[in-house]
């Protein structure tokens, strides 16, 4: 295709991407560099049903004037990125200098909200992604060998978790692991410990969130691999069989290499999805035990009453950076494969 034609061809998509993806990211980045003006406060008498007291309030007029002069707020540079709520340079430095062994340093790190969220998010991503990849492939191969009559129902059942809205799905699991729920009560009987509570233990809560993550995203990798399996060349399979390869060897040397582009694709999607885990944490009320980067952004915007825009913006930018870092190895690999094929 000529460059000119290509440009015209891609122009609508490109402009939509700039408008709806690139510009908002630039805007979030700019907002993350600013903080609010110094508030003009006034102390005055305030009265209500429970008596009178002196109360501080914001001088609305003075604040409005400040805002009109500088609508973005006060320039803070990367101050928000390095403060305690984010990369916490000062606190991490202190913790490192005063450390009492590596474990102590990690404890201090886990005490800082951003690192706490980052560590959970990374753990979640690196546990859920490989499990979903391998299990998805296994189920796809399993379903593919089923007789024709049972294939349809099997596919339908395997897809079910994907049809349930994440919030609802996790809420159902949340009720099931309650002390009075079917899973929670069964665990108590199994371990003979009536005070066993999944919701009260950090390791169990992390496990539950990851089990939920696997359950919910499994159908996606299953259906992609199942579709891929339909295109495995029968000649090669037969040739392998004639050469004396057993089922396992055929799988490893014929099927998996054939599916490699799909594995790359599913890995990319899963990494991106898992890195922004949010809904299960909300539904499980797991905030006390596990926070993800997305939950941290959500918290800044919702829980504080008057939203902390620059804090949320800074976390968003670092989340995007995290996704880019995670995806880079996979993208480099794809690029290499592409070049090899081209030559």
């Amino acid at each position, binding site marked *: 295709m000529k460059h000119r034609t290509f440009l015209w061809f891609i122009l609508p998509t490109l402009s939509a991407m700039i408008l709806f993806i690139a510009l908002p990211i630039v805007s979030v980045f700019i907002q993350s560099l600013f903080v609010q003006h110094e508030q003009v406060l006034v102390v005055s008498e305030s009265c209500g049903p429970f008596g009178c007291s002196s*109360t501080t309030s914001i001088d609305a007029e003075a604040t409005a004037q400040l805002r009109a002069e500088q609508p973005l707020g006060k320039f803070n540079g990367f101050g928000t990125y390095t403060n305690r709520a984010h990369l916490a340079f000062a606190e991490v430095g202190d913790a490192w200098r005063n450390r009492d062994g590596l474990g102590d340093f990690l404890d201090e790190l886990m005490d800082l909200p951003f690192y706490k969220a980052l560590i959970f998010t990374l753990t979640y991503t690196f546990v859920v992604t490989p499990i979903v990849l391998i299990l998805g492939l296994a189920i796809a191969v399993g379903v593919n060998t089923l007789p024709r009559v049972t294939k349809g129902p099997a596919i339908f059942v395997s897809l079910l978790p994907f049809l349930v809205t994440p919030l609802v799905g996790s809420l159902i699991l949340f009720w099931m692991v309650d002390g009075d729920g079917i899973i929670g009560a069964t665990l108590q009987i199994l371990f003979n410990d009536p005070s066993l509570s999944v919701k009260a233990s950090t390791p169990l809560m992390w496990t539950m969130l990851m089990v939920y993550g696997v359950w919910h995203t499994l159908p996606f990798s299953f259906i992609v691999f199942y579709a891929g399996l339909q295109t495995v060349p029968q000649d090669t399979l037969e040739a392998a069989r004639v050469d004396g390869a057993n089922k396992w060897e055929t799988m490893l040397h014929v099927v998996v290499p054939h599916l490699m582009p799909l594995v790359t694709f599913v890995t990319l999607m899963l990494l991106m999805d898992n890195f922004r885990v949010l809904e299960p944490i909300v539904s499980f009320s797991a905030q006390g035990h596990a926070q993800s980067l997305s939950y941290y952004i959500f918290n800044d915007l919702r829980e504080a*009453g*008057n939203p902390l825009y620059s804090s949320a913006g800074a976390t968003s930018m670092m989340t995007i950076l995290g996704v880019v870092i995670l995806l880079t190895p996979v993208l480099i690999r794809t690029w290499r494969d592409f070049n090899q094929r081209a030559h």
Partner: protein
Amino acid sequence: MKLKTLGLGVAIAGVMGTAALAQNCGPDGQSIRILGSDFPAIQAVSGTAQANCGAGAGDFTVTLRDNTRDIMNQALTPNPAEYTSVIVANSTLTQLMNDDLVRPLNDLVEKYGQDLKPNQLITIDGNVMAVAFMANSQHLFSRTDILEQAGVEGIPSTVDEIVAAAEKIRAAGIMEYPITMNMKVGWNMGEVFNLFYFAHGGELFKPGSAEPNVNNEAGVAALNSIKALLEYTHPDHLTQASNETQAVWEAGQAALGIMWGSRGGAVLDDEGSTAEVTENTVLSAAPTAGGGAIPAATLWWDGVTIAKNVSDEEAEATFAALMTAMTSDMVAENNDKAIWLIDGFEPGAAAAGVAATAAGGAKPYPMIPYAGLMHNALGAELADFYQGDESAEDALADVEAAYRTAAKEEGFLQ
């Protein structure tokens, strides 16, 4: 024919006129849009206003939902605002005033507020910013039958007495976890700290400044009081808020509860529970702590505000409609749904807890612009202490550090 139509028209206008006179609904044909939280008292106020003035208004919508505080600022920011009135509480009025989104009501109160009592007016620097209609606070719920069975005399009134009673109930093998309280991580967990911190005589900020002031003796004492109670709550307590604790109570699984007064009516009614629970539930003042006299509670009011970014006519019509609902007639019809601040309220059993807590000298929830930031920091950073991962001092130091970071970003600290 024409004369007849005219006559009919005059007659209708006359009827409508008298209706409008009986219910002074302000300017006709305006759009009235009310936003509020979804609970019985607000349903009663907004529903009555709609019934009185819905016919004469251009349109009259009432939106009641959960978590209104998450959307109210965004909804009132554009001009014209999405809603003409938001029904708020102490903390959410501050949240709206921080962004200058509600208007002073002095002239409207003068014109339509003849039936209001002076203590219903929330005035800041002489400006009426909201009109309160109900009060609320946390307080103690007790099951007298279980206390009696365990050999506890009377209703406990201090944290130590509650802990002792809970121990007796546990020792008697009646319940393993007799206490229930709203400890869900986030807003609820932060609020529980406020209750006990105020009971221990603490102040959230250094006087006259936005500097945090929780990492001190009173703060540690408050955390220890809470920890003592948590020994006897279900291990899932960090996931339990009002809906869960009410369910636990109604299922008969707790004997001592620190819950909201606004849940009292729902607990005592004949829905969702057994007679055994409802007949033996007694509502009393929130407990005192550490030998002090102040009940561990914060006093709240709920009231109406009028948006700034709407036309004066819409504002007037909305205020007038809401005033028609704040009457003794409405209270007579909905007496047990709230602790009404309006004339004609007859306190029943469901109101006993809040009344005793207020009489005991509990503190109102602070209406300070940066209180929300402190509340958020408390709700996020104390979980480590309750889970036993951190000392009280370290957790409180984390709270102050988290608050400072947020307050700098919002321009309250430099």
